[in-house]
């Protein structure tokens, strides 16, 4: 079954996503910051990444997404974030600066998250 890595500094988000996705049969891992996330990506080689933006630094997720793409990570990324509401900004995905497949604002309905994961994994 596909492996999903959640990188988010909010343990409640980690736990909620894990419960929802494990119920669907996915293998789910979690990391709480950018450095740990990068390490786990290298070790676990997830099939899909769910990535927060505001972690130790408010722009960590943006930087990490580009870091991964620069390093050759080609698997889909869902950016799951409240950065727009929290920072009063209006960003979205784009190939240059926000290289992710989906930009999803929090909160997200479990069914929506599952649908996005399935779509990106071709399930």
């Amino acid at each position, binding site marked *: 079954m596909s492996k999903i890595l959640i990188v988010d500094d909010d343990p409640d988000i980690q736990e909620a996503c894990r419960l929802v996705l494990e119920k669907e049969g996915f293998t789910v891992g979690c990391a709480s910051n950018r450095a740990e996330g990068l390490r786990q990506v290298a070790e676990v080689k997830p099939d899909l990444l769910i990535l927060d933006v505001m972690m130790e630094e408010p722009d960590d997720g943006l*930087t990490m997404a*580009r870091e991964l793409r620069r390093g050759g990570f080609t698997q889909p990324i869902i950016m799951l974030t409240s950065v727009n509401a929290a920072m*009063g900004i209006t960003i979205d995905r784009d190939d240059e600066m926000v290289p992710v497949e989906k930009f999803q604002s929090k909160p997200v309905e479990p069914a929506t998250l599952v649908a996005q994961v399935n779509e990106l994994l071709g399930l």
Partner: protein
Amino acid sequence: MLTIDSAIRDDIAAVVERHGAERTSLIPILQDIKKEHREITDEAMQVVADLLDIHPVEVYSVATFYAFLHGAPEGRFVVRLCGTLACDFAGKTAVAEALRTALGIEFGATTDDGVFTLEWASCVGMCDQGPAMLVNDKVLTRVTPAKVAEIVAEYRAKGADETRQDIVTARNELTYAGIEPDAGLKAALALSRGDIVDTVSAAALKGRGGAGFPTGMKWNFCAAEKSAHKYIICNADEGEPGTFKDRVILRDFPDLVFEGMTIGGRAIGADMGIVYLRAEYAYLRAHLNEVIQRRRQAGLLGKNVGGIAGFDFDIVLARGAGAYVCGEETALIESLEGFRGEPRNRPPFPAVAGFLNHPTTVNNVETLASVACIFAKGTDWFKSFGTDKSTGYKLFSISGDCEKPGVYEFPWGITVADLLKEVGGAGAKAVQIGGASGVCVPAADFARRLAFEDIPTGGSVMVIGAQRDLLDVAENFLEFFVEESCGQCNPCRLGNPKLLEGVELLKQGTCSAEHLADLKALGATMQVAAKCGLGQTSPSAFLSIVGAFADDVTTRPQRA
């Protein structure tokens, strides 16, 4: 209803045509009217309002906000004596008296023959060479009472502004001098936009203007915004008393600043860069415009910059009109748009809705020059200076009671004591770090470090000798804030006069312990309740002085 002479209308119409009948042109229009007519009359405001299709009260509100626009009719030569602390230490009072005598007028007045107007300036950015004063756009340094008579006589005799400027800034060896021209720009333009942002983040560059916000993060959010237009603004409104390092960078290393702006423009996706130059630095305009023009001719500005198809980026110069608060980024943007320089509510942040509501990044002069160096020499090189949390080197503006005032580069993390050794500041009883909005550090704390994790600063270091009265220091700063508060929020507008009144009471020995406690509480409230960063930091010097020097400032004998 005003009756307006057709000649005045024609004159002003010509000025408006020159700048364009747009709101963003309002301040340049008013600057030209002031220069040509020496005052902005009600009639002139009415004509400008008609031509810009705005209400006259809008024009009035702007014309009366800025120090270089408002006021009674001015003489042909406007003499502005700097009132800041370092000029005070250097003998400002005697120079002021000499000016009064030579001109026969008080400050705020114009001679009967209409030749001279005498005014105070909050700070002209010559703290290392005080007493300093501006005569129209020219700056005169190390003025003495004896020189005043000569200067006045020369202006009277020649009837023209031919006096030579005499700026000589002491400095140590600056890294900027060893950076290969445009090497940073070339290296940066070979990278993707994302890689440029990530390089700046990896260097951990923090803003050099004082607030210390991470530059890479600022660029990151602005770069991720989508917009047909974006702007990068160079904040050259160096108005913090005791700060003058940007003046040196703009004069001696403008290419590095423009390189940094171009790199930033590429990163965030901007098509226009704007340098907001403070009115007091008007004498730098011609030089900066020449450098911009040279860069255009070299293909470093304009269409397809650096040979990158579609990267169209140009830089223009805008001039402030004399308002300290415009150093605050949203007030600066308001000013650029032709409004009073009053800080905006945030959010939205400039990264989303800045100049003309487009995503905008505002960076300090030194920050942008540092960007060029990072790309020229690499992030590892940059991080080899400073501390883990304060990477790189910093330019410090050193003034006051020391042997070698000037602009000095040191790595972040230098102790106050080591810095004083370098500039001959032995025997200081305190240093004011960060300008009027900074903190007063007593000699007992000179082992502390200048770094974001200890004493953060935009680089101003005013050395306070043993002979000085710290209540005079607090008074000077609070007079500055009373004058320069934009007046928009109560904590800053009303708080600073109360603190100033408290300093007077302390001097008179009539400030009770209870009242002083109230003043400290007021200062603490201002630090959280003022609308902008400048208002929030305005009580810092007062609080640090009455805190660290309580034994001195609270024990004055009661005056009869």
